[in-house]
């Protein structure tokens, strides 16, 4: 087990290194610079002075070496170019914590409701509860979040005036984002749990258990659920890391000062330090969660334990 973990950590570091290097060179190869958001041509000298100040006048490999040195020796990613005076690492920490609040709550709510709905649907296959759940699931998967978010905002903020449209700080600000964010999770898990359960329920060992006279409740509890849940954990990797990186669309609509904003805008703004910072953050989070899930997997399912 220890060997497995060490090996995996080694792979993780290699993955991160490749991601950082590739991103660094790719982002410097796209046209434009951090002054592009001014949407105008600046005099050459103005641009040169700016480049010099932020070290952008150096060649990309040189900048890469400087960046890696600071990252490895001091753990620094530098200052944002679009938002002078703000450390990228500070922004990542502060904003991911903000994103994690609605994201985390939505994930928990989505998981619980989604799994319950999935179980209900599986146990009532081809009956009305199944149809209702699948209708919700299809809606959840097909309705884009920005539509759902705008509709909810219109109903609760403009028409009923019970919740604020945007903002951050009060519990009222977080209600709609949680509903919107959890909707997709509910839909995904309802469908996934249902199909996994049906799959497991068709297995021979379930038939054996039933033949032995185990009650239906116990069959489901002891055999079906456990085996049906395992594959669901794979899905969790993306979802868990997603709560920290935030949702660009939902955060934009509800004015949540999360991290999602920086993922999209740093690229448009050519905010190099922020692009690389957000990329490292997302990549590290993803590989880390994946490792955690893999470990959990191997603990729970002897069939896939790595030797």
């Amino acid at each position, binding site marked *: 087990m220890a060997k497995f973990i060490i090996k995996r950590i080694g792979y993780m570091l290699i993955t991160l290194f490749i991601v950082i290097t590739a991103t660094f060179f790719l982002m410097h190869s*796209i*046209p*434009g*610079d951090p*002054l*592009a*958001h*001014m*949407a*105008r*041509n*600046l*005099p*050459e*000298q*103005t641009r040169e*002075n*700016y*480049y*010099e*100040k*932020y070290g952008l006048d150096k060649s990309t490999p040189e900048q890469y070496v400087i960046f890696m040195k600071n990252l490895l020796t001091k753990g620094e990613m530098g*200052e944002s170019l*679009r*938002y*002078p*005076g*703000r450390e990228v690492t500070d*922004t990542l920490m*502060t*904003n991911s914590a903000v994103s994690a609040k609605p994201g985390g709550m939505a994930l928990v709510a989505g998981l619980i409701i989604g799994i319950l709905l999935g179980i209900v649907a599986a146990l009532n296959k081809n009956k009305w509860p199944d149809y209702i759940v699948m209708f919700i699931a299809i809606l959840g998967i097909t309705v884009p979040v920005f539509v759902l978010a*705008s509709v909810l*905002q*219109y109903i609760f*903020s*403009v028409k009923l*005036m019970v919740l*604020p*449209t*945007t*903002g*951050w*700080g009060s519990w009222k600000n977080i209600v709609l984002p949680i509903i919107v964010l959890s909707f997709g999770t509910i839909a995904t898990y309802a469908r996934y749990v249902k199909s996994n359960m049906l799959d497991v329920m068709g297995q021979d060992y379930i038939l054996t258990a039933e033949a032995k006279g185990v009650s239906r409740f116990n069959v489901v509890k002891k055999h079906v659920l456990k085996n049906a849940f395992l594959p669901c954990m794979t899905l969790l990797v993306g979802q868990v890391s997603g709560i920290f990186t935030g949702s660009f669309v939902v955060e*934009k*609509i*509800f*004015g*949540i*000062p*999360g991290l999602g*904003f920086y993922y999209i805008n740093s690229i448009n703004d*050519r905010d190099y330090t922020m692009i690389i910072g957000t990329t490292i953050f997302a990549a590290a989070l993803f590989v880390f969660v994946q490792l955690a899930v893999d470990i959990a997997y191997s603990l729970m399912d002897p069939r896939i334990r790595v030797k």
Partner: protein
Amino acid sequence: MKRKLIASLLMATMTLSLAACGKGDGGSSGGSGAGGGEEQYYNTYLQTEPSTLDSIKGNDNYSRGILINTMEPLTRLVEKDGEQVREAAGAESWESNEDGTVWTFKIRDNKWSDGQEVTAADYAYGITQTLNPDAGSPNSFFTAGFIKNGSKVVNGEASVEELGVKAVDDKTLEITLEAPTPYFMSLTDTRACYPVRQDFAEQYGETYGSEAENFVGNGPFKIESWTHNSEIKLVKNENYWDAENVKLDKINYAIINDETAVFNSFDSGQLDWCSTGTEEWVNRFDKKEGVDRIDAVIPSMRYDFFNVNDELFSNLNVRKAFVLAVDREDMAKTIYQDMHIPAYWWVPQAVSTGELGDYREQVEAPLEKTAKEEDAKELLLKGMDELGLGSDPSKITVKYSLSATTQWARNYGEYVQQKYKDILGVNIELDFNEWSTFQQKTNSGEYQMANMTWSTDYDDPMSMISLFTTENSSNIPTGWSNEEFDALIDQAGKEMDEAKRVDLYSQAEQILFNEGCNICPLVNEMQHVFRYSYVKNVDEKFTSTSGLKYVYIEGR
């Protein structure tokens, strides 16, 4: 295109600096005077997080909106009885020597929000640092060409000590110019001339202006809190010299990136105002009660420009044909749903020339007459003949570069394609680019015809017309150059008599369309603001720099 569009919208938003929509958690005590003791708070918005409040490093319109309320520029352009007046602000008075090359400002007794006296050195430091190459300020272009040795300092050819800016004593600021600049005063309220407290800025170094605590201002309001990407709260600055005339106690800026969220917030009364350029929302808010609609022309142009080094567009008649072929009325109606006005000029409306007022009211639109007299198709055929391209326009294909890839840009592109086909019979190939790619292509001359937006930097026709001198030609890279035009602009830049200066501008604009036609104006932008009627005394003109200083609330 889209970036510029957003930029313009924002600029509009910011310059007027008036936002509306209350979250209902505004001011505490009654206002200072106006409004019969009711709570004086104003709920406004920014569409994006300001980059920094360091006026030297920041260059976005969002931070400009905050700075105009938290800093005291030397002067402010204020509306009085519908007229714009340049009002003494940070400077109590000013005078220039006879030839207009040395300007002396008497700095008013005022205090920074932390209680320190404002001195001439604070203004001198701000102006100097903007031009200091070590500071790498993106705003150096505002003043570099005007202040003595400005360009040399920016280029590193002269030291900052040689710059024509000095604090003679605590209350006297002296600025020496390279040459007489009649419109110099209109630069005094741009961010390139804002004061900066040297001790404070040096204490915080790179982080100066990045947080509410790392910033100090001397304007009518001060920053209470700044939650990045969420909200900024301003409160009245009791240390401000004119505090008794500042009515608002609190200003709440919500930072809302999403347009629909802005409109929903306004609709539900959480914002006191909003700006929209969409017909759908305009119609909706028109029906809303207790809301005023204010339409204002903004000094910003949407235009096409031609690469005169391109084989086809090297010919003046061809360029003219393309300029005249545009049905501006139809475009304003079909594409812009009458949200903007057709433009037959280059210097936009809402740009004024000192005391003479709006330039466009003094000078007739150069394209209006030509559009009636000449026939686009004939000009095209003539040009094609001159170029030896035969007489079949359908054999010509022109690449039209756009700086956006949005659905709107695509619709717009198709419209242009259709129109040129109908009127001139030429084929247009559309080339959609992301802004940065567009910028790179046009700068390196890899384009034939392209579309962009430009807004003025300061309130004088010079800001627009000087973009086409040989010296400034990199701004809009058409490759066109004309000695006569250069000479006229040069002369206008020194002409202290306003009527004569207007005449020089008008001659230059004529040359631009008679001999250049490297530019094809399309529409002059407008902004459409909706504001709850309880917000009073807002300056409506886009170029005003009074900020929210005189705004008050009555009958919320």
